């Protein structure tokens, strides 16, 4: 999965990145995380997903591995001070602020393109074709005289939808496969993991191409195709975490206390396993954007005249020498989005103590 390596942080290998699956035996003897409440105070909550408002989610176990969320944990702190403490390490990084601001702009402009441009992205104007970038047309106009900036922003909505859909499907499916495999073990585990191994052996883009050819063209098929490609990573990570958590004392305590397996899984194992999966999800957003743009570049995107970013880059290729902005500006835009996502994910990883 060379595509994944591009956007994965150094910490990934430790949580069971697909390229370096951690054997169960290596995962189990983790230092006990019973001191969770003690270290929770120094840990930023921002960006850690569902845990954020809910008390301690992560602890430092001393080996770089995110630790357990104590089942009975809780924390009291004044909100303003807490927010500042959480935000400070981020605000001290201007690169992060820029990247985050750009991502926010892309998301907002994708959802409400009308706020930033008044041009109809599909209205052709033959008299104004191939105008260079300028004040009137920020990104210039394309071969049919359509405003390129407007097309990029309207394309954001499609790409964001496809990316979000792909990551969502991958997280849900990956979590399910990982939990089932890790929790049940035995032959079910073997079966699921060998299937995952097979999926991992196939290059992401190749797999996605095959799937999208079978499903047909459009945003949803592209999202499904890309998600199938990134599910194995999530499944692997989840399984490794579930294996680790399963052996913890509090899980045994819960079982001894009479909780059903289903309840143990739902209340104890799952909440303590999905932390690394969330980190992986943020990292995989970049991969998904690239894959989805690649697929739409190859012509599998939304039906015309709608244009995803990849479609815009692709349709400008024939004008690369004479009107380079047609491909370069949307390309730059995609590049910045992926860099931005990468930077945000990296910073989140680094800043977490």
């Amino acid at each position, binding site marked *: 999965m060379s595509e994944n390596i591009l956007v994965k942080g150094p910490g990934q290998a430790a949580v069971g990145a697909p390229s370096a699956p951690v054997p169960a035996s290596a995962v189990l003897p983790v230092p006990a995380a019973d001191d969770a409440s003690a270290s929770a105070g120094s840990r930023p909550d921002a960006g850690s997903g569902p845990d954020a408002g809910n008390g301690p989610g992560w602890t430092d176990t001393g080996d770089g591995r995110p630790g357990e969320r104590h089942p009975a944990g809780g924390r009291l702190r004044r909100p303003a001070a807490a927010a500042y403490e959480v935000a400070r390490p981020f605000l001290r990084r201007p690169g992060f602020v820029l990247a985050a601001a750009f991502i926010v702009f892309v998301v907002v402009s994708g959802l409400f393109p009308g706020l930033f441009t008044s041009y109809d992205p*599909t*209205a*052709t104007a*033959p008299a104004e*074709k*191939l105008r260079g970038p300028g004040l009137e047309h920020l990104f210039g106009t394309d*071969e*049919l*005289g359509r405003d390129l900036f407007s097309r990029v922003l309207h394309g954001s909505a499609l790409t964001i939808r496809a990316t979000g859909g792909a990551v969502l499907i991958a997280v849900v499916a990956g979590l399910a496969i990982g939990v089932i495999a890790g929790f049940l073990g035995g032959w079910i585990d073997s079966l699921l993991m060998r299937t995952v191994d097979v999926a991992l052996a196939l290059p992401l883009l190749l797999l996605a*191409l095959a799937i999208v*050819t079978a499903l*047909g*063209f459009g945003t949803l098929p592209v999202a499904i195709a890309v998600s199938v490609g990134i599910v194995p990573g999530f499944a692997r990570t989840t399984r490794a975490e579930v294996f680790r958590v399963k052996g913890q004392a509090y899980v045994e305590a819960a079982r001894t206390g009479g909780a059903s397996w289903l309840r143990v899984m739902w209340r104890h194992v799952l909440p303590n396993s999905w932390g690394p999966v969330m980190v992986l999800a943020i990292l995989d957003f970049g991969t998904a954007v690239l894959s989805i743009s690649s697929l739409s570049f*190859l*012509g599998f995107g939304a*039906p*015309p*005249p709608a244009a995803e970013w990849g*479609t815009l880059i*692709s*349709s400008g*290729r*024939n*004008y*690369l*020498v*004479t*009107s380079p902005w047609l491909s370069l500006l949307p390309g730059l835009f995609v590049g910045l989005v992926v860099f931005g996502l990468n930077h945000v994910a990296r910073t989140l990883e680094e800043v977490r103590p």
Partner: protein
Amino acid sequence: MAILWRRRNGEDAGGNTDGNTSGNNRSGGGHGWRAATVSLLTVAFLAACGGGDGGSGTNADNAQPVPGGRLKIAFWADFQGCIDPNQVYWIESRSIDRNFADSLTDQDPATGEIVPWLATSWTVSPDAREYTFTLRKGVTFSDGTPLDASAVKTAFDGVRDLGAKSTLGVTYLAGYESSTVVDPQTVKVNFKVPNAAFLQATSTTTLAVLSPATYKETAEARCAGKVIGSGQFVLDSYTAAKAARLSRRAGYAWPSALVKNKGDAYLDGIDVSYITEDSVRVGSLTTGTIDVAWPRLPITSADQEIIKAANGVIETRSLPGISAQIVPNVNRGGPLADLKVRQALYKAIDLKSYASTVYWDSYPVVKGPYDSTTPYAADLSAKLAHDPAGAAALLDSAGWAKGPDGYRYKDGRKLTLTYLITASTPGEQLLQDQLKKSGIDLQLKVVTSAQLTQLTTAGEFDLAGSYLTRGDPSVLGSTLDRAVTKNYATVYSQDDATAAEVSKLFARGLNTIDPAQRAAAYKDLQDYLIDHGVVFPTYDRVQVAGLSNKVHGFAWTSESFLRANDIWLSK
């Protein structure tokens, strides 16, 4: 990635898919073609022909040709992957074929007239069922076998035996019965039914005469390059979709009457390569890596400027045959079943703007169902004129009222038309926006070629593309005449009454001996097709070639293929 979009059952199927394709998928696969081209003969003089020789001027040189050098030419793709002239429909391959395989006759690109080549003279029986050719003496194939009457018989029998494998041959030889060797220099071709278009067919690469040894090979081996012709060049090697190499044949002395160079080729050989990406191909031309850039879709005006800036030359000629056009589905019960809606469609489409926007300002605007270089092509511009007010009036009277969103509605149903394409190109999106202005919602449905075949066969479309290249108007029958074919364009573009009339008009065009009468018949046919909304022409298919300034003596064949006989390279 192009492999995913390969289109195999068509002629010069338009399009690659990585984005720079024409979405016009050809129609008319190899099925169901039947003996059709019934008619009387019409030799020579084809009146209304040759309008579109828009050549922008070759390297006009009176300089003495210099022999030597290899011509490096790059096409865009080779999806069919076949080089056998008798079988191939892919126009790029036919351009290569023209230079190593000769035909009985040749067609003058300027007039459409049939002129001598391997046959020095011919007679046609009044019922157009017997063609007798007198062959040129001393012609040999490159394997040394003499090209005589029995070789011609072997060739024509061989094409017939290919059957549906020769997509074009089936119609060119429609009604073929047998060939008779009268004497070594005379061959008589007999038809069960009249086939007046046969004389033009003998000028094509499809009916090129190959060595008898070739016909002992399997069809697949021939496709892969085991073909021996009598041409000015010899095919040394051919690797599908990768390369082809031709080299000069010593002792060649039987060119067509249209060729200036009566002897050996000036070029040592021709090297063919395939470059998919337009910008790379143009870059290769301007940097001197190749001498000729030969794409399928016209070179963009911007790229033409780049070529000219590098002292290159642009050659253009409209491909004869069916213009790029869209056929409606009138038998689906959709909005297009109503003739008024179809007529409104003509008025809603701005062909002039299409030509100047998608291509360039002086690009020829399509004038009817045929490209301008097709013999007997009529000028129907008046019927195809852009008239939004007229379109609105027609749609109003058909009961489609404008809704609040600008689109038209009838009984709560939106005026939506589904157009099947295999790749999105600017042309269709411009059309979409043009129709939107008249309240018509054109949905572009991008499908794979496999899905396209399936959907068109099942009739699950409102509009689908079609085109075919041949220098005779009978070619349109291959996609629109129910007496000839059962493909989707024929089945869905006409209701039964219209189809009967269309078939009658095609037959009339082929049954007329007098060129003037033939012209009148085809004029009536073209009028009828437009009046009844059977086809919607979108653009004239112009073949554009970019040449480096080293290339001299460039020439088009009548079917807008490459003729290298007179080409020479300056040092």
